[in-house]
């Protein structure tokens, strides 16, 4: 009994899987992180320097003078680019994680946002996993991609599924979410974009908001499960993209698009064959077609 449990545990978490879902997520999440950091590109001094206005959490007033702050900020961008390219991936992942944490505790944490927590978890995941196993400069230099143990992919899959399910459950059990009023007034809140007010100006009936509210709850409750199944996966991904894009456009909260960057973890991705890359001087191939091991 015990040995069977161990075998099952090993099969679920340690069977070797194709690395492409993790590689695609590394690239997609890295691009997201670039966008996240670029939001601050014109306000580095006020956000991260000793001449700025920020509320550090747990780390004290350690912001350096503006020139150093700009250098640290540029280093964060450079490390993120290295992570995207898979150049010394493990080092890049650790450096990006540490630099994100630095900026997080200096300035992001005060907003108490769930998306920052997810960013931290995903970056910590990249530090622990072989995110550069494929579609990376590291893999090109090695001459081959390599398999990764399943937990490198499945733990982040689980985290995203738990995020959706927990959010849906939270809303399902929260009386505020049982009518459409929550959504209606959120569209008129400080987070709303002009488009939110334009939607309200159309004076949709109450049932519209109620239906949208329950659609959000149903989506969040089921999305985590739906991503695991091949037949439902494209639908969940499409709805998820629509949901997070609408959050970005109507509520000016694009940061939750980080959830979408984790969708490739659930996909079986095709081979990427780079043939005759002229700057490498010879034909090289990396990648293959393989499953993610999901259902």
């Amino acid at each position: 009994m015990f040995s069977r449990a161990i075998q099952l545990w090993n099969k679920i978490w340690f069977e070797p899987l194709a690395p492409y879902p993790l590689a695609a997520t590394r690239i997609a999440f890295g691009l997201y992180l670039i966008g996240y950091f670029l939001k601050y590109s014109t306000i580095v001094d006020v956000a991260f320097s000793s001449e700025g206005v920020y509320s550090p959490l747990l780390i004290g007033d350690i912001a350096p003078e503006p020139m150093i702050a700009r250098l640290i900020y540029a280093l964060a961008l450079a490390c993120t680019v290295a992570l995207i390219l898979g150049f010394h991936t493990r080092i890049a992942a650790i450096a990006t994680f540490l630099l994100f944490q630095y900026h997080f505790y200096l300035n992001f944490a005060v907003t108490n946002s769930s998306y920052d927590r997810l960013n931290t978890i995903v970056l910590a995941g990249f530090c622990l996993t072989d995110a550069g196993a494929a579609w990376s400069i590291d893999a090109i230099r090695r001459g081959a991609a390599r398999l990764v143990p399943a937990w490198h992919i499945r733990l982040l899959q689980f985290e995203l599924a738990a995020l959706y399910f927990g959010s849906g459950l939270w809303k399902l059990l929260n009386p505020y979410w049982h009518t459409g009023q929550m959504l209606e007034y959120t569209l008129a809140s400080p987070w709303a974009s002009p488009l939110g007010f334009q939607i309200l100006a159309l004076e949709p009936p109450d049932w519209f908001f109620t239906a949208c509210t329950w659609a959000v709850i149903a989506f969040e409750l089921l999305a985590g499960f739906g991503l695991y199944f091949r037949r439902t996966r494209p639908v969940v991904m499409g709805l998820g993209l629509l949901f997070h894009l609408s959050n970005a456009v109507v509520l000016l909260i694009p940061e939750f698009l980080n959830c979408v960057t984790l969708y490739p973890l659930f996909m079986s991705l095709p081979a990427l064959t780079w043939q005759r890359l002229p700057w490498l001087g010879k034909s090289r191939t990396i990648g293959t077609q393989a499953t993610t091991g999901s259902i």
Partner: protein
Amino acid sequence: MAVQQIESIEDRGRQGGRRLQAADPRFGAPMMDTLGTAPESSSDGRALTTGDSSAVAAPDAASRPSSGRLADGARKLAASAVILFVLYVNVAIIFNYPLAKFAAGFSLPMTWQIYDCFQIFGVFSSYEMLNRDVEVYGITAPTKSMPEGKIVRLDLAEYFPFGHGESQGRATVARHLYNFGPVGQYDAYQSLAKKIRARYARLHPEIPIEKIVIVQVAWRRNLEGFELMKLNENLSILFSE
């Protein structure tokens, strides 16, 4: 169309996976350990092939010396600890918070620091009928004509260059209240006011200010526009130096 494309990709993926398993017996080896110890390439330095034009390198666990297997076992144990931790934390947070009212007072052990790192579920957990906005004022040094000093309204964009929602969140330092209570929030306000004052002095040296006052304005939320009903009647002072 998009659905068909994704399914097509997946079908190819599954076929590829089967081809890989058939071509490389090591892929199907039981409990092959690949905890970051996979060889960097095949023995001749080139990509392994699977009958396709591409390859994935897989580790050969059976050929490892026993010391290597011991290290792999230790890595697997460490990885299992990480996996169990993440599984437990997520389950505990769901059980302790959304499901708390069904738990009859029982909760799974959890520190607030871990909760704080993993609590990613409570998005928009309440709403209100009021809009709120933060305003920052500076008070200049007293003069003969103005013994209490002149009040100057500061341009919020110079200190909180964000949207209404984010500026509100930052200026109320609610996170510090949430984590460290009123004393922590007061300390954060003091620090914030000091930074605002210093930045103002750099940007506007012609009108020195001595004190900072952070004010919150609240007004009834209107579906026709954010600031439509905004009147500076319902003011509350969040912090004053």
